[in-house]
């Protein structure tokens, strides 16, 4: 049982208004408007370079939008920057582990959140157990395999029991059984009341995990719909092509400001 349960008011919902993000003179996120509310599972899909990772970073506060606003509008949003930061957590496409033991990495994250040492120990044991990493607890984290590190990254955010969890392709490079294990962990985290916002290239995974699917293409949010509706009857023609596997990469023309032509 996780002893360190979330407490305090929610920071969700999260509202993005007219977001644009530019880097080196290129508009990478364009006129985006959307909102995320409590306890939902959102899966963002779209081709490589669509801006999925950027969108997660913007939402998580690691990047500032060039124009537009990103606001947490729950009651907890008034409790200051630090509170807002600690209500969120993110698992990166390539998780970074400190040169410490597996349990030391979780302990560090909990310490930053201000959890007391005795509670830290209990929580760490607990999540390592549940993530199937207990026998690796004293191993240096950086010598773990890619899949094990990914599970450790999940165990680490699990320990933090955030209100909102961002996951950037959490199962890229994992074998089917590791993928299954990671999906189970994500479900378990969600069941503690965490809102999931994740990206994926695995449409099957999107079907399995998502309550809602967001389709991104060249920096634009082209469609957002409940999972079944999205897969059975996507409204946007690019989303249609993507779901059918027909949106080929060379559709990304040189001028990425215009929508690409449909692929035949």
């Amino acid at each position, binding site marked *: 049982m996780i002893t360190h349960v979330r407490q305090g008011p929610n920071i969700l919902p999260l509202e993005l208004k007219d977001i644009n993000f530019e880097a080196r003179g290129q508009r990478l996120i364009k006129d985006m408007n959307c909102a995320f509310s409590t306890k939902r599972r959102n899966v963002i899909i779209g081709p490589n370079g669509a801006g999925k990772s950027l969108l997660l*970073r913007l939402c*998580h506060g*690691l990047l500032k939008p060039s124009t537009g606003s990103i606001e947490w509008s729950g009651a907890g949003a008034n409790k200051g920057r*630090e509170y807002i*930061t*600690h209500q*969120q*957590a*993110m698992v*990166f496409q390539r*998780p*970074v582990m*400190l*040169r*410490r033991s597996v349990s030391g990495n979780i302990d*560090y*994250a909990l310490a*930053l*959140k201000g959890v007391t040492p005795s509670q830290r120990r209990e929580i760490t044991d607990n999540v390592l157990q549940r993530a199937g990493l207990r026998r690796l607890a004293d191993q*240096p*984290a*950086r*010598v773990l395999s890619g899949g094990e590190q990914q599970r450790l990254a999940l165990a680490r955010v699990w320990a933090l029991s955030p209100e909102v969890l961002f996951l950037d392709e959490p199962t890229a490079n994992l074998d089917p059984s590791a993928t299954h294990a990671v999906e189970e962990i994500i479900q378990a985290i969600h069941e503690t009341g965490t809102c999931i916002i994740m990206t994926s290239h695995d449409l099957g995974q999107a079907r399995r995990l998502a309550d809602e699917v967001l389709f991104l293409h060249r920096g634009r949010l082209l469609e957002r719909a409940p999972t079944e509706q999205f897969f059975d009857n996507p409204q946007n023609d690019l989303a249609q092509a993507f779901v059918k596997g027909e949106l080929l990469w060379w559709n990304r023309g040189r001028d990425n400001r215009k929508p690409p032509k449909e692929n035949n």
Partner: protein
Amino acid sequence: MTDFSDAFGSAFSLVATFDSALVEIVGLSLKVSLTAVFFAALIGLPIGAAVALFRFPGRSILTVFLSALMGLPPVVVGLIVYLLLSRAGPFGVFGLLYSPTAMVIAQVLLITPIVAALTREVIEEMWNEYEEQLRSLGAGPARALPTLLWDGRFSLITTILAGFGRASAEVGAVMIVGGNIDHVTRVMTTTIALEVSKGDLALALGLGIILIALSIGINGAAFLIRRMAEQKYG
């Protein structure tokens, strides 16, 4: 040529028999340089890390300045410390000139920039890798500073060893501020300079052998520490 091989022979026997004059000189050298490297690390590690982590006006100028200080000529440092510590200088009242303390001060000035500049490089590279993850966990630059110093400990040990190597091999600064006084401020490098000028090669060569061994030992240690750390911690 026999002179030369004789000198080598007696040099080796000095080293092998732990000749007391030689041991005294080596002992003082190590004491001075180790003390200097301790303070240089104490000052240089946090400064280097801070320059790497914080964004402030003049940061790039400071970076260039730090790198430039790395190449500071030892005699110039010696001169500056001499001026500061001499009777007429601002710190003259302490009477530190021609003491081991003066040599430590000179070496600290000499190697702190080296430790700081190399630390900056190491920490900056790590920050590129860690920044988003640490920020996500709620650690800004200030909280990341001790974390990164600890996580970079193996690379940083190499940095400190580089500082120690430079300190123990340096002659100009300690000569000026130490004065090369027998039994008081005579260290390996200054003794070598003096003995060679007197034409007495045995002691000079013996100390030379030790300096070279020290240098090889330091580099070997740095190499081993890195490799072991890589294997153990990834």
